[in-house]
């Protein structure tokens, strides 16, 4: 595996006014790695995702994507540099068809953002690619249905598809299996494993079985700081982590 760092966080902090929710976060994710971010509720996992993806800028430190600084950029600029994220609460285009939801992402990848001169139906490269992603996330049967009509787990799959559609190779997934049954979770994990093949993945996850089966490395975030980073085995046996967070789940 290529061990070149793809996403680097150096001393990243975030404060809302005088309230510091994150401080001194250092994290390095290497190419092709599947990295999990775990931590108790309120540890700042979502904040960290928001800071990395540009929803709001960090108040300290620097974030680099393949060596270039991305902290402080707008979300669309970060996405164009190759980092794409999903959302914990399903964030799709409810009234557009499932196909169209994905096509919006593919359009961005092809750079047809302000295309006004040609009908989209004639852009076969874009349509084919959207169809290919539709099949990869196993929603081809739902092609024409409004995305808002899908079942919850189908919407979660669409959410992942949309995250992939913009062609980014660094993928951030925010609790992709939240609210799913055991069976749905297994399917979702399998889907994530397949579709992120060859990409770099950072995933927030509560389900420890998902974390330990899917990911190469794990970082534990507690009170806005990284407590430990290591392989699933190292994290499992880390006393500090056990005390702070994992508790009985690992025992």
């Amino acid at each position, binding site marked *: 595996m290529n061990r070149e760092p793809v996403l680097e966080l150096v001393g990243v902090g975030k404060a809302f006014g005088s309230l510091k929710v994150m401080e001194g976060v250092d994290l390095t994710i290497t190419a092709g790695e599947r990295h999990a971010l775990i931590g108790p509720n309120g540890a700042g996992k979502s904040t960290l995702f928001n800071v990395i*993806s540009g929803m709001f800028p960090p108040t300290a430190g620097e974030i680099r994507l393949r060596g270039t600084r991305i902290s402080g950029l*707008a*979300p*669309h600029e970060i*996405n*164009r540099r190759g980092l*794409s*994220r999903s*959302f914990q609460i399903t*964030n*799709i*285009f*409810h*009234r*557009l068809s499932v*196909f*169209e*939801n994905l*096509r*919006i*992402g593919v*359009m*961005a*990848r092809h750079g*047809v*953002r*302000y*295309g*006004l*001169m*040609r*009908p*989209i*139906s004639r*852009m076969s490269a*874009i*349509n084919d690619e959207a*169809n290919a992603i*539709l*099949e990869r996330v*196993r*929603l*081809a*049967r739902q*092609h024409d249905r409004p995305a808002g009509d899908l079942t919850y787990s189908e919407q979660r799959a669409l959410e992942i598809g*949309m995250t992939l*559609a*913009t062609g980014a190779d660094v993928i951030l997934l925010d609790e992709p299996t939240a609210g799913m049954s055991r069976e749905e979770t297994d399917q979702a994990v399998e889907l994530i494993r397949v579709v992120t093949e060859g990409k770099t993945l950072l995933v927030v996850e509560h389900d420890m079985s998902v974390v330990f089966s899917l990911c190469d490395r794990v970082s534990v975030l507690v009170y806005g700081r990284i407590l430990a980073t290591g392989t699933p085995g190292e994290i499992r046996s880390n006393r500090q982590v056990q005390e702070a967070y994992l508790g009985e789940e690992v025992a």
Partner: protein
Amino acid sequence: MLARVAAIGVVLAVLIAVPPLLGIGWQNAMTNMLIASLFAMAFNLLIGQAGLLSFGHAAFFGVGAFATLHLMLAIEDRSVSFSTPLLPLAGAAAGFVIGAFAGYFATIRSGVYFALVTLAVAELLHSLAPHWDGLFGGEAGLSSMRMPWGGLSFGSTLEVYYLALGWTALSILLLWAYTRTPFGRLTLALRDNEQRVRFMGYNAHATKVIVFAISAMFSGIAGALLAISNETANYSLFSLHVSAQVVLHTFVGGSTVFLGPVIGASVFTLFAFFVSDVTRSWLLYQGLVFVLIMLYAPLGIGGLVQAHMQHWSRLRWPDLAPAYALAGAVGACLTGAVVFLVEALQIVFSPEYAAARRRLDGAWPPIELFGLEWQVFSPVTWIVPSLLAAAGLLLLPHARRKLRESWDGVLERAEAERTAEPEPQLAGAVEP
């Protein structure tokens, strides 16, 4: 699809063939109908497709009209030579430029804040225009004459009508083509979820500015057509009334249906043409129609039409026809009662009636309504609207239940058909 093209062809043929047979008043009303339709279509690009509700679209309508009048004045002076049929290009250019500028600020925010900024832009122009002689001609406004061009004199109402028809048809065609482009699809995505659009690599603000400017451009064309038709414009074009009117037209017609705004604008323009001659309360009736449609058919007239077209094969007219007949009867009773009361009260409280009473030393002369004389204090007079209202209100729950039952049947059949569709064996077997 073929049926739709044929229907549009028939409507266009009627719009081309019929006006020469009509009087000037009608031709004028139809020109106004076209202008209102185009304005509402331009407005609906924002609310229907981008999900942005503008309360100040009169700004761009007015700017288009004034820009066109300036060009007409220059042509009149012979300082510029420009073809009369292409005058709306001035409105389009002015609408686009001012729209891009105002849109840049308005679209920094969404929702209520966006609506308030657009409102402020129109109000700014409305208060500025009467004091700015050079640009807006002060309170009197600007006036000019249409110049002949080619073999056409542009002297008759009919020629202006055809010019408006050509520009409206072309603009609506372009707006339709817009919905088929990648940017048109992105506009819909923006309406559904602006945040996700940003996280998929699009600059949401730039996108909104472009949509806004295009909407303002087509509004400017509509304003230009008005300037050409009236040969004059003043600051009242920027008034809140104009901004509100286009909102009403769009929602009565249905903002979710592509041609819905055309329906709303046509219905209300013709309504004004007919009813404003008959009664001074026509704006009240227009407001009542708007409120009723928003409450009971929130997708507008276009939404009702679309529902019927979508389920055409599943409609069972033996069920529906009695329900519609009953609903129509209820509507007629209640309309009769309301109109009777409004008109009677309007007469009784009018200054003319007060003057008539003074002439008769305080006696109450009969009022004339629907070609009959009614005594103000005779019970017969008030029994009529009371009976109509009572009949309407008694039958109303019944009519609503019948409507609901017959449409429930239609929707059940639609759902049954959908679930009965054979599901493909393999994921991915469906090709677009």
